[in-house]
């Protein structure tokens, strides 16, 4: 059964019963503003959770320690008992791990993906501290840009695939964002996290097919 349709659409709708999801940050922001403060930070954590498998996939053996730190930081973001000071420290630590684009020894086979994933965890931790909808939107943008990156991998040099929102990796992400909002609107935090984890694995399998 499809997990997200109808009310879960971020924007659009083709009028034929199928949901034509588009990435629309204004609409996303409006939807998030209707959620509780806690749900906003959980939404951001779900975005980061969706990027964790692909982050691990792009990390080489030499980045094993960084992967453990990033995973640990996200767990702090999930933890309801973590103090604001601990979250703040985790945020600072994880943001310091964002690799430089020009660092050829970064330990990642794909620095762009590592940047998206680590930044997403950083925004999730910021959202946990601030409960600010914009931090959650920026977390979603990291996820969306990672999916766009995947789509563009199949484009010939000096061209971009324009209708990215219609491509499978982006649709997976957009359905995931919509599902998370739906889950959190229903108070189903655990379900949202489980969906995020399974979607993250699905996204990674799409990378593997490239």
């Amino acid at each position, binding site marked *: 059964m499809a997990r997200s349709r109808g009310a879960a659409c971020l924007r659009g709708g083709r009028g034929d019963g199928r949901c034509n999801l588009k*990435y629309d940050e204004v609409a996303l922001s409006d939807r998030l503003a209707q959620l509780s403060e806690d749900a906003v930070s959980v939404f951001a954590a779900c975005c980061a959770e969706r990027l964790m498998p692909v982050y691990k996939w792009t990390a080489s053996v030499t980045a094993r320690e960084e992967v453990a730190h990033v995973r640990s930081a996200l767990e702090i973001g999930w933890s309801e008992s973590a103090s604001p000071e601990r979250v703040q420290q985790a945020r600072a630590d994880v943001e310091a791990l964002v690799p430089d*684009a*020009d660092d050829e020894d970064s330990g990642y086979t*794909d*620095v*762009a993906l590592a940047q998206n994933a680590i930044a997403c965890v950083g925004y999730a931790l910021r959202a946990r501290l601030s409960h600010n909808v914009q931090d959650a939107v920026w977390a979603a*943008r990291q996820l*969306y*840009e990672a999916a*766009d*990156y995947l789509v*563009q*991998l199949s*484009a010939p*040099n*000096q*061209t*971009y695939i324009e209708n*990215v929102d219609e491509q499978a990796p982006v649709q997976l992400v957009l359905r995931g964002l919509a599902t998370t909002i739906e889950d959190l609107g229903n108070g189903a935090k655990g379900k949202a996290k489980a969906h995020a984890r399974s979607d993250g694995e699905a996204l990674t399998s799409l990378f593997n097919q490239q």
Partner: protein
Amino acid sequence: MSTRGGAAVLAGGGWDLSRAQRALASGDDVLGRLPGADAEVTSLDAAAKEGLTPWQMAMSRAICSACQAAIEESGGTVAWGGLFAWWPW
């Protein structure tokens, strides 16, 4: 990078332009994409493929020696500081 014909070539290094960056482009802009290459080389290659003549190039970070060599080989000059290059008329 601006070109003689008026069109601008936009490019990023490494993984090229993100969706948000592409959204900021205007209709006449040429969007460069050359995975793994630096932005300077990407924009020169994009201009060549579009038949455009380079005029001025602004960089957001100091140019590397390989890109400087590519610009000079194409007839351009890199300004001191490595954040700007131009091609003579």
